[in-house]
């Protein structure tokens, strides 16, 4: 169905090609997963499938890309619209109309599908993706998962043979990600659509993949189970399988659970060492905090105290009030009532210069923090903003994401790289209270591991870290305490093991596999096994 034949893509003005000598085929009806480091060219590869690269982006494409027998050299993206449906990273950015139904019909209108066929297909797609209840809603009033499903539906109604998705679950909470993946699963199984998908969160998707296309310098393809045996980065279920020596390697929690009996016996009475945070003085406190946007309440009476040495994970659905709580802690939103004290000051009444010495926030949209035209200037600017020794920001960036070109414009970086740059900017001030709003969106496993190390160091140095995230594996690795928000209220607050291990949505893979044993990460299991033998 899709054939890449010695494809090399070079963007205008770039010294290095974005993709080098890529050859692979994806047969009809398969779900192919594209994996690779952040900035390795995954998006370029996906966009080459429908000819956006090079017709839309410019640059040169050497070699040949064939989709359903059509050469993208001769067909523009709009002429491939009946064969390839594409869903970008941010579904909101690709919406053309303003209600769900109109959005679903848009591609068909462009293709000139007769009205009665259109009407039928829209109804079918609404049912297929579970969108019938929201069919006449404005797109802005949808939840994250509904938006993503609408975007998928909009690409599907023209009955393309190939569906291309760029990180379809990275911005979604675990429940919404489940919805989207279940919908995709149905498409592949029932309709025989060929799906090509890029995703960093392997733990969510690897079990559904028929084939993995790995970009790391060269491009290799293979069956997921084969590639995972040697892959340098792998989801926890695979790492646990490797540690326990299971063969064949399980890719899903269910398969691993069936193999886990022996491991549970080997672990016997051994329990993970309790996470001891060296908890110091109180750094921040919210008292009965109420925030609303217009008439919509975002937080209803949240009281919480944060202490030095803690790494607190803030979890909950999209729209539960996580970002609002973080913004209130740096004084970006005006509370309607209640008080906020962060590092001894009221963030609303403090000058920015004093404020950043007390609290630092990496916002959800990391690009908001970046002004300079090059990475090097951005780092130099951050050093002078935070009054630290020149070169500190650049060194932090090098640690988070190695080999970023100094002369690049921050907006030309990949989403993950841009986040690393914003993280480096804020981390170089090393404020006592550090807040991170969804710091793992678009980060690969390597960058995530380095971020975990840095956060642990900061906590050990007596900083308090709060991160809002949907990434349960990250929470299991780094958090000492978890807060769960729902509908603007605090519904649980406790140490990591108690809060996430028991929850069906928030439990990490290791906890699901080894339940009822209270292990959360592969590292904990490895330590316990060492002690057992």
């Amino acid at each position, binding site marked *: 169905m899709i054939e890449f034949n010695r494809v090399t893509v070079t963007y205008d003005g770039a010294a290095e090609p974005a993709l080098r000598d890529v050859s692979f085929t994806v047969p009809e009806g398969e779900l192919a997963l594209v994996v690779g480091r952040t900035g390795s060219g995954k998006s370029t590869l996906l966009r080459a499938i429908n000819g956006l690269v090079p017709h839309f982006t410019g640059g040169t494409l050497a070699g040949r890309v064939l989709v359903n027998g059509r050469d993208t050299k001769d067909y523009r993206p709009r002429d491939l619209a009946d064969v390839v449906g594409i869903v970008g990273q941010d579904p909101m950015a690709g919406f*053309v109309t303003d209600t769900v139904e109109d959005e679903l019909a848009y591609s068909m*209108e462009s293709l000139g599908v007769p009205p009665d066929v259109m009407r039928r297909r829209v109804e079918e797609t609404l049912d297929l993706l579970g969108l019938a209840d929201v069919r006449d809603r404005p797109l802005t009033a949808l939840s994250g998962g509904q938006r993503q499903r609408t975007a998928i539906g909009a690409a599907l109604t023209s009955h393309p043979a190939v569906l291309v998705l760029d990180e379809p679950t990275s911005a979604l909470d675990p429940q919404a990600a489940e919805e989207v993946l279940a919908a995709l699963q149905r498409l592949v199984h029932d309709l025989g659509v060929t799906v090509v998908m890029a995703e960093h969160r392997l733990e969510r998707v690897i079990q559904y993949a028929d084939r993995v296309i790995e970009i790391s310098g060269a491009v290799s393809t293979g069956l997921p189970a084969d590639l995972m045996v040697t892959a340098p980065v792998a989801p926890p279920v695979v790492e646990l399988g490797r540690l326990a020596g299971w063969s064949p390697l399980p890719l899903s929690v269910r398969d691993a659970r069936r193999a886990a009996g022996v491991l549970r016996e080997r672990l016997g009475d051994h329990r993970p060492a309790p996470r001891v945070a060296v908890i110091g003085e109180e750094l921040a406190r919210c008292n009965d905090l109420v925030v609303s946007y217009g008439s919509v309440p975002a937080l209803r009476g949240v009281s919480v105290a944060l202490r030095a040495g803690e790494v607190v994970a803030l979890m909950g659905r999209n729209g539960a009030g996580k970002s609002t709580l973080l913004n209130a802690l740096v004084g970006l939103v005006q509370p309607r009532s209640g008080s906020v004290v962060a590092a001894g000051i009221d963030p609303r009444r403090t000058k920015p210069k004093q404020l950043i010495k007390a609290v630092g926030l990496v916002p959800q949209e990391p690009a908001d923090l970046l002004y300079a035209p090059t990475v090097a200037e951005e780092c130099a600017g951050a050093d002078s903003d935070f009054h630290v020794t020149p070169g500190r920001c650049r060194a932090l960036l090098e640690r988070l994401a190695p080999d970023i070109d100094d002369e690049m414009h921050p907006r030309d970086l990949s989403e993950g790289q841009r986040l690393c740059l914003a993280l480096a900017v804020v981390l170089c001030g090393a404020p006592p209270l550090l807040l991170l709003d969804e710091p793992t969106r678009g980060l690969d496993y390597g960058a995530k591991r380095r971020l975990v190390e840095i956060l642990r160091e900061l906590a050990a140095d007596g900083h308090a870290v709060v991160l809002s995230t949907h990434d349960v594996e990250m929470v299991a690795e780094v958090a000492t305490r978890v807060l769960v928000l729902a509908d603007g209220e605090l519904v649980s607050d406790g140490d990591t093991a108690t809060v996430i291990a028991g929850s069906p949505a928030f439990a990490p893979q290791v906890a699901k596999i080894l339940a009822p044993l209270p292990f959360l990460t592969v590292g904990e299991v490895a330590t316990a096994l060492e002690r057992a033998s």
Partner: protein
Amino acid sequence: MRAVHHLTLPRALHPGAWWLWALGLAVAASRTRNPVLLVLILAVAGFVVAARRSDAPWANSYLAFLKLGLVVIGVRIVLQALLSTRSQGNTLLFTLPQIPLPDWASGVKLGGEVSAEAVVTALYDGGQLAVMLCCIGAANALASPRRLLKSLPGALYEMGVACVVALTFAPQLVTDARRIRGARRLRGRTRGSFRTTAMPVLEGALDRSVELAAAMDSRGYGRTAHVPRRQRRITGASVLLGLLGIMLGVYSLLTDAMAFPVAAGALAFGVLLATGAMAVGRQRVTRTRYRPDPWALPEWLVIGSGAVAAATLIVAAARGVEGLVLPGPLVVPPVPLLPVLGILIGLAPAVAAPPLIRRRELVPA
């Protein structure tokens, strides 16, 4: 009777009907400065909006336009008070400190005595403009401009999409600017410069438009049947010329800038040219339309009521019916019967337009 002709079967009214109705009220407002009639038009528009608006985000625009109207009135009164001379009347209201101006500006006066006549005239003039704005606001609230653009003729489709995209981007820019101003605090910077505020906003907007363009391209936007270039240019030129004719005609009809026959001729010529060109241009377009809004009895009734309101006041103004123009600023405004009745007919859509479809979850099972 076909389902679309029912007045009570819930469905969304054709956006064009709402806009024409609102335009009718606006034309009616343009013919009078009698505050009683102006307030009546405002109330009619407000009542229909309250009766038939949806709960979509754009449905609040009537209120927004109402506020804008108050600002217009306020600005007008302040300027008039600052610049007023005694030419309009002698009833002294109060005296502002006068700012002496150099000799060459001898005709102009800043501050000084403010007469009641000047202020009241400004109030009525500003009120007329504000009411016309509110009519546009009512149309906005009842049918988003996006929906209106959706029913544009095929030949204008691409232009329509460009407008739609621009319409979405303006409010987005405001939210972006607010967010970026907040983020500046996080870098410890107090003052913003062009580089730290405008640049990120513009870059963000550019990124988004590129993203949207890519999405539209991959979804088949701009797929066209082949038409010779010469023909394409001729159609394009005649559409523009036709629109120009329509604009001239409407403008001079509303303002009496040209003699009636000339203006009407320009309008007719424009309409003819534009429709002809669009019919030819349609060949190029291979698009189809999903669930086009029907045009049936309710639509006719709605635009009919708007037209009656407009026609009553146009005819009354042309015939010199008393009460449309006040004899002086400080008299009690009269209540002319015929125009009042005409405007009240504008209320018809509150009943004639089908009610909205209720959200599914609100309907009892």
